[in-house]
Each structure stands twice: as C-alpha cells, then as structure tokens.
C-alpha cells in the first residue's frame, strides 16, 4: 500500500544528531508514523486511483467564479482528504498552507464536524503540492475558507455516510435507523454502537456517495464550526519549539547555502573572485547562478551562491566574495525622483477606467472644489521567517521542503527549471513563519533546486537572510493617488475624480505593462460604492523598476488610504460630521452589481452571489461607531478617526483612537474594528487575524517604507525597515464581528480585509487630535515638534 501522506517521509531520514536525546524533530509525528505502520490506513485504502479535479468539478459553460475559476478548482473526494486507521485515528489532509491564519485547524475542523469525528482523535497532515489531486492550493486572496468550506463539508459528510452505511450493513438495519455521533455509529433502537476504527475497513469498500445525495448537517448541530472552541492544531508544537518551518528542515548530509544576488533588479554578475570566500572555514563551494531575462516572473535573480557546512559559514563566505555587478536598465531607480514622476503623471489625465455622468461640467458648477494627493511607498512583506527551501535530487527525483503559499506553482516551476517531468518533483509544505504574499512567489524554491542540482543532488538548504528578504522581495507597489471633488452649496459631493498611479503587478509577468490590472483597480478604486452622479476614475501610466508583487491586501492599501482620508477631508470642507458624511456618501442600502461600477473582477466571485452591498457597509460603520462611542469628547491632543473599506468580499469599518503628546509622540490606546465577513467558521481565528491586521496596518502607516537609491533597496534590516513593536502597538484592540452567523449566506475573506482601513482611520484620528493632515505614508516623524 502506497502511503498517501508525503510529509511524514521527512522524518525517516532527518538528520540524526550524535545523541538521541538531541533529536528534536517532530516527535508526535514520528510516533504517529509508527502507529500507522501497525494499524494501516483503511478507509483511505491507499487513496487509490483518485478522481481528478477536472472530473469532480462540475463543468459549466457559464462564467466560472470562486473556486471553480481557480486553477484545478476544488476536490471533495473523501478518499483524498480523510483516512481512518483501525485504532480510530482520523487523519485529515490540509491542502492549503498554514501561515498563521489557522487554516490547518479551521479546514480540518470543518471536515471533522461533518464527519462527527472527535477532534481529540483527529490528526492533520499537510498535503504536498499536487492540485490535480487536492484542488487549488494557492494560499492567497483570503479565500481558503470561502472556497473550501462547502467542499470540506461534503468531504466530511461523505465519509460519515460511508461509515453509517457500513454500520447499517453490519447490523442489517436500514441506514436511516443509524446515526454517526462523535466517532461512533449508533443504532438507537437497540443501543448498539460501532466505533469508526471498527467500521473503517468495511466503509472503505463502499462507493463514495454521490454529491447530490449527501446529507449535510443542520448548522444548529455543528459542534466545532462557528464555535471558536478548538485551539490551534499546531499550538503545542509552536510553544515548545518543535514546530517545523521551512527554515528548520534538516536532512542527512545536508549542505547550507546563501546567495549574493544582483543589488539592482535586472542586473547581473560581471565578474567575481571567490578566493577569500573559499578560505572561510566550512565553505565548500562557490557557484554562479545565471540571471534570468525579463519579465521577472518567479525566476531566480541569479548571482553567486556559497555552499557551506553550516549557515554561518555560508554567510561569512558570502561576505568574503568580491563581485562586480552590472546594474542593468534599472540602475538609476530612485524613490525621490520616482515620487515626483508619479505626481506629475497624476496631475495629467490618463487612461479612463470609469466615467459616470459629466465630471467636467459638474466640477465647473461646484460651489467648492477640494483636491489632495496621497503617497504610499513600497513595502516588503517581511515575514518573520525569511524565505527558505531545502532540495535534494535522487535518481532524477527532486524533493523539496519549503514554506510556500504556492506549492503547485513551485512544483511546476521547479520541474521546468530542472527539466524533469512534474511527477518527479515533490513539494513538501512545511509551516510558514508568516507569508503575507512573499511566499506566493517561489523564486527561492527554484534557487534551492538549482543548487542541489549543482551539488549532484545532495540536499541543500537555502536560507535567505533578512537583508536578502528586504533587498529582493516582490515589493508592494508605490503609488500616488490624486483625488478631486466638487461639493454643492449644501456640501454634498457632485463630482469625484480619482487618478491612481502605481506600477502594476502585471509588469512582473509581462513586458511593459504600465497600467493597473482589473484585479488592482477592483481593489477599492473603480468599485468605490459612493452615491455620486459624476464620477471618473483614471489610471495614468507608471513604469515599474523592481519586482512588484502581492502584499497582504495588495492595492487596497493605497486606495483605501487615499479614498478614506479624502472623505474625511471633504467632511471637514462640508462642515459635517465624518461618520454622517460618509454614510450619506455611501447612500441608502442597496445591492450593486459590481459590473455596473466597471469592476469585472469582483475578487473572482460571482456578481450575483456577491454584489456590493451598501447596507452591509453601512452596518459595519454604524456598529463600530456605536462600539467606539463615536462623537465622544476627548481632551486636547486626542482624537478618533474613522474609515471603512470593502475588500475580499468582506466589509470592515474601523475607529482608531490616538493621543499625540506635546513633542508629537503618537500612541494608540485603542482600535475598534467591525467586520461583516458573512458566516464565521472559526470566530476565534477571525479575531486573531483582525488583531494582526490592525497591527500590520499601524506598522505600515507609521513606519513602513522600502525606498530605492541608484537602483537598490536602501533598507537592510529591522533597524532601517522598522516594524511596529509592542510598546508602540495599539494597547487595546476590540473586534466586533457581525451579524449573527447564518450559514446560508456566502462567506467573505478574513486574512486581508482588516488591513486597508487602518492607515486612513489612524491618519483621520491624528487630524482630529492635532489638525495635522497626513497625506504621505509612513507617518514616521511627521508629527515631531522639535
């Protein structure tokens, strides 16, 4: 029988330290393996000839949305996701990457609930990259739960049905007369019971019930879903230091590598001298990696790799290298000059992407015209675990252990680079020490594979240092947003012009893309749900000079910062309360087809199922205002700021409370954040995600900036790329989740939508406290009074 679980293979040849007591690899997993060897998987029956995703995904000639529209769609075959051993242990596969959002708890918990499995007897195993088997694995876009809640419910329900059928057959009673309950099937009439372990063998022989026949639980009967009582699956391993991240992989005879990459994107090695590097004790070899022609895609940047017997030796060796770099076409990229270029572009009209009414005429007749420009710089995701990957190649089979948000993409790219068939490449997905979009790009995974190849297949662990991470990220874009509005004599906006100028992510994947894609414009700028008759959105050109990529909540960050700051500025101009003004601008509750706003993307979701619902947006604003006691009088130097934003089909509103002292030192006593993300599967993890979003939002607003000089990134490490620490973090974060969960309504995203409204709410609060308007991020020392 072929083991369906790839990950545990890791422990079979993990480096044995000279003393057994030193062996700190995942012990629980090791014991588990032994157990499995004794009892075997039975329900899974070797996870045989599995249905392919394209066979299980309903085919449709209509537009595809949600998980259907993602590469490889979804799979809901219980034989792929569930295994039951004869001792009753239920193993559930998690096919999405765990990066702190809790997916290794929440998705298996959904299966376990429908399966009526006792969570104490559930094991979670991580799927390797294999989308034809598991469905889409790109862990991004705040969609794991949104796309897989229903498939995972069906997985659990199908497995439960098979167990019930096996029990009914055993007792020779009608299947309707039995029911599964907490790891056993009961025949209430006679009080007989059979445990899942006892039933597994017989159940495995039964056909998988047809999807249409499945009886899903009544949400009132959920045990785990919606309750927030299940602690995170990896919690114990995390607090004891046993959790295994990509950077922690250890294989027998493993070598350690770091790479010196071209400081400027598009640059390459002219010449190098490795003499001194090779003298560093522990350094084994120096290897040149070729650079790749544009577009950047996920290709490695090239450079000089140092292979050593430990990470420190490799780092020392790299410092001893002498390298002459050619800068290439982006050698003069300079953030100061570039900002001026973006501003110039924003002051002229550009590509029109939405045009309602007659903007020019409306501006002409406006009683008052207001305009403002907002700047938001590049950012680096900077997950606490930098990118890392370990590769080995044995007899034409490449295995990689890595922290990746994109295991299937990693597999495809590695196969291409190594010229191996895809089925000769296995990507084992470890825990991720944060991702935030950085680990969606597998350049580092390919690097590790190339280095192992260069070392004749020996295991090589590639570690990125923090400097590497900050110098060579796929950076969050940099933008100038210019807004202009015309108000009537009552202060009501009649005209709205928004020019958004920012290098696009598509420049990373294609030549000369200078305009934002539908996915970027659809992040709050084109689909702005304001009730304004004359509205125009323009997108002037911006040339990219570095690799632009996803950062948690992506273009929503600059768009929400500009729009929600500008609304507060308009409220002041109109002499009105910000909250009332914002609600009037949004207008009455209505469900807007996003296509009528020019948004054809709609976060990949169906416009019918997920219209822009201004009623829901109004409700989060009203809720957060109520919870934060909006309008309360605060002493001088303190203030409240409000912002609301719709993204990833979730509605969020925030009130930030600030205090700014005489010297201009900012503190944040409290943030209230109200969220409507539809039904809440794991409310406890929703809260933790929103808490994290508040901190990340504060961090990028107050401190976050990556800047370029002579083509290269200026910031090196956490002293120059600063992140919010505990002493400057909001002291209290209050999460308000609404409305009451109704599992008949569609799910929204959770991981990202909390981030965008934080920066504008914070800047609006600073204005309330001090009268100073922040239009350029980060705030850093703009408030300082000395």
């Amino acid at each position: 029988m072929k083991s369906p679980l790839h990950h545990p293979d890791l422990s079979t040849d993990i480096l044995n330290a000279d003393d057994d007591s030193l062996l700190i690899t995942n012990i629980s997993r090791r014991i588990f393996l032994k157990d499995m060897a004794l009892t075997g998987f039975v329900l899974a029956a070797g996870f045989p000839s599995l249905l392919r995703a394209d066979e299980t995904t309903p085919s449709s000639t209509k537009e595809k949305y949600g998980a259907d529209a993602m590469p490889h769609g979804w799979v809901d075959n219980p034989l792929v996701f569930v295994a039951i051993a004869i001792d009753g242990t239920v193993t559930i596969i998690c096919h999405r990457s765990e990066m702190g959002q809790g997916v290794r708890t929440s998705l298996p918990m959904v299966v376990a609930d429908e399966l009526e499995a006792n969570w104490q007897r559930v094991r979670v195993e991580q799927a390797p990259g294999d989308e034809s088997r598991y469905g889409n694995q790109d862990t991004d876009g705040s969609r794991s739960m949104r796309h897989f809640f229903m498939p995972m419910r069906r997985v659990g329900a199908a497995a439960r049905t098979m167990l019930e059928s096996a029990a009914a057959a055993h007792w020779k009673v009608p299947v309707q007369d039995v029911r599964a309950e907490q790891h056993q099937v009961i025949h209430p009439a006679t009080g007989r019971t059979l445990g899942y372990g006892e039933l597994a063998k017989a159940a495995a022989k039964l056909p998988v019930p047809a999807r249409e026949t499945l009886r899903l639980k009544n949400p009132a009967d959920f045990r785990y879903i919606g309750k927030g009582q299940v602690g995170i699956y990896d919690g114990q391993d995390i607090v004891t230091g046993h959790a295994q991240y990509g950077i922690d992989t250890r294989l027998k005879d493993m070598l350690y590598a770091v790479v010196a990459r071209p400081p400027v994107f598009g640059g390459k090695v002219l010449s190098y001298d490795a003499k001194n590097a090779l003298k560093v004790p522990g350094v084994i070899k120096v290897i040149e990696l070729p650079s790749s022609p544009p577009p950047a895609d996920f290709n490695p940047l090239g450079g000089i790799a140092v292979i050593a017997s430990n990470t420190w030796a490799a780092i020392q060796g790299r410092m001893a290298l002498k390298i002459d770099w050619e800068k290439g076409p982006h050698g003069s990229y300079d953030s100061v000059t570039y900002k001026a270029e973006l501003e110039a572009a924003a002051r002229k009209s550009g590509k029109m992407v939405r045009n309602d009414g007659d903007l020019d005429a409306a501006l002409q007749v406006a009683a008052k015209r207001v305009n403002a420009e907002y700047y938001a710089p590049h950012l680096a995701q900077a997950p606490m675990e930098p990118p890392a990957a370990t590769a080995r190649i044995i007899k034409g089979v490449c295995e990689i252990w890595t922290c990746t948000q994109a295991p299937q993409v990693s597999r495809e790219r590695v196969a291409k680079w190594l010229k191996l068939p895809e089925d000769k490449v296995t990507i084992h997905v470890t825990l991720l020490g944060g991702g935030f979009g950085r680990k969606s790009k597998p350049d580092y995974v390919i690097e590790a594979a190339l280095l192992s190849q260069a070392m004749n297949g020996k295991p090589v662990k590639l570690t990125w240092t923090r400097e590497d991470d900050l110098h060579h990220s796929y950076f969050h874009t940099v933008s100038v947003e210019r807004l202009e509005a015309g108000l009537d004599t009552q202060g009501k906006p009649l005209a709205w012009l928004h020019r958004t100028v920012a290098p696009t992510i598509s420049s990373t994947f294609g030549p000369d893309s200078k305009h934002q894609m539908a996915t970027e414009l659809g992040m709050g700028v084109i689909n702005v749900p304001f009730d304004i008759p004359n509205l125009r959105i323009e997108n002037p050109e911006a040339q990219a000079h570095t690799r632009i990529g996803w950062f948690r909540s992506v273009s929503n960050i600059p768009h929400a910062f500009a729009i929600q700051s500008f609304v507060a500025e308009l409220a002041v101009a109109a002499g009105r309360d910000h909250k009332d003004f914002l609600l009037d601008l949004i207008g009455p509750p209505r469900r807007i087809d996003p296509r009528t706003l020019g948004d054809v993307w709609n976060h990949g979701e169906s416009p019918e199922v997920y219209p822009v619902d201004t009623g829901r947006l109004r409700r989060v604003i009203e809720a957060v205002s109520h919870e934060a006691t909006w309008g309360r009088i605060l002493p001088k130097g303190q203030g409240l700021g409000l912002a609301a934003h719709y993204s990833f089909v979730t509605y969020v509103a925030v009130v930030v409370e600030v205090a700014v002292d005489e010297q201009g030192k900012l503190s944040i006593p409290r943030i209230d954040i109200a969220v409507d993300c539809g039904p809440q599967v794991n409310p406890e993890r929703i809260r933790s995600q929103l808490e994290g979003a508040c901190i990340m939002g504060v961090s990028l607003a107050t401190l976050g900036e990556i800047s370029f000089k002579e083509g290269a990134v200026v910031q090196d490490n956490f002293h120059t790329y600063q992140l919010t620490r505990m002493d400057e973090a909001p002291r209290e974060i209050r999460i308000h989740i609404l409305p009451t969960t109704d599992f008949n309504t569609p799910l929204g995203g959770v991981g990202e939508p909390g981030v965008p409204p934080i920066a504008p709410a914070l800047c609006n609060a600073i204005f309330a406290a001090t009268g100073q308007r922040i239009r350029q991020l980060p705030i850093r020392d703009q408030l300082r009074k000395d």
Partner: protein
Amino acid sequence: MIKLNINGKLRQINLPMDTPLLWALRDHQGLTGTKFGCGMGLCGACTVHLDGAATRSCVTPISIAVGKKIVTIEAIDQDSTGKKVQEAWLTQGVPQCGYCQPGQIMAATALLKLNPSPSDADIDKAMSGNICRCGTYCRIRSAIKQVASITEIKP
C-alpha cells in the same frame, strides 16, 4: 573544540569561536526551536537564556556562552515559570504563524522570573525587542498578565 552546557547537558562543539550561538544551536545541535529572524539582535526570534538572562543568540559568539547555562525553548518547560508561560500562550491563543513565539516565550519567562507581577511599562520594556509580524502583541500582554495573576494568588 569547546563544551557548552545546553539544556542541562554538556555538548561538544567544534566550530570557530566567533560562530554565533544561534547557528551552533540550529545547525550543529539540531535545536531549531531557536529562530533566525534578523541576525543583528533586532527582532528577538533567537532569544535563549544564558544563566537565566534573555539573550539574543544571533549576536552571541559561542565563546561567550562557555561556562554558562544555556536554556532554549525546547527545555523551557522544565522551568515552572516557563511551563506556565507556555500554558498561558495556549489559553490565550497567542500564536498565529508561531515563528516569533519561541523568542517571545523565552523573553516573557525571563521577565516573569525576575518580576512576577510586571506593570504594562515593564512588559513593554522587556518585550519590545521581540518583533511579531503577525501582530500578536495584545494577546502576549494578556498571557503575561495571566501568568502574573496565577503567580500572585499562589500562597
């Protein structure tokens, strides 16, 4: 060749004396619970105890650790405060990705051993060297306070 006292056992280490303790622990001893985050003493991910003091192992050469008691996250449960901190971390649901948490737990344990009922300002001071990119600071504070209150009510 030097000997280091790591988690109560003497270990032979054959590395240059300027090797940071972090890499000796991770690469040589296989104690990967101690994390690499910056290598410059800026993030706290690599925090261990050296004779009970929270120490950034990424900027501590092994030569300095000779003759000192090194305790890492893997053995902090053998300390009664460390164990309580780990439990509080789970009760409060502190970890998100968890990567910074070994360092946070080592820093919090060192704080609570020195100061069993720290004020908010004490917590800020002791914990602000540890970055959490996932943003778990509020829960870290609650967890530290949870341990502090347990300590207080004990006779």
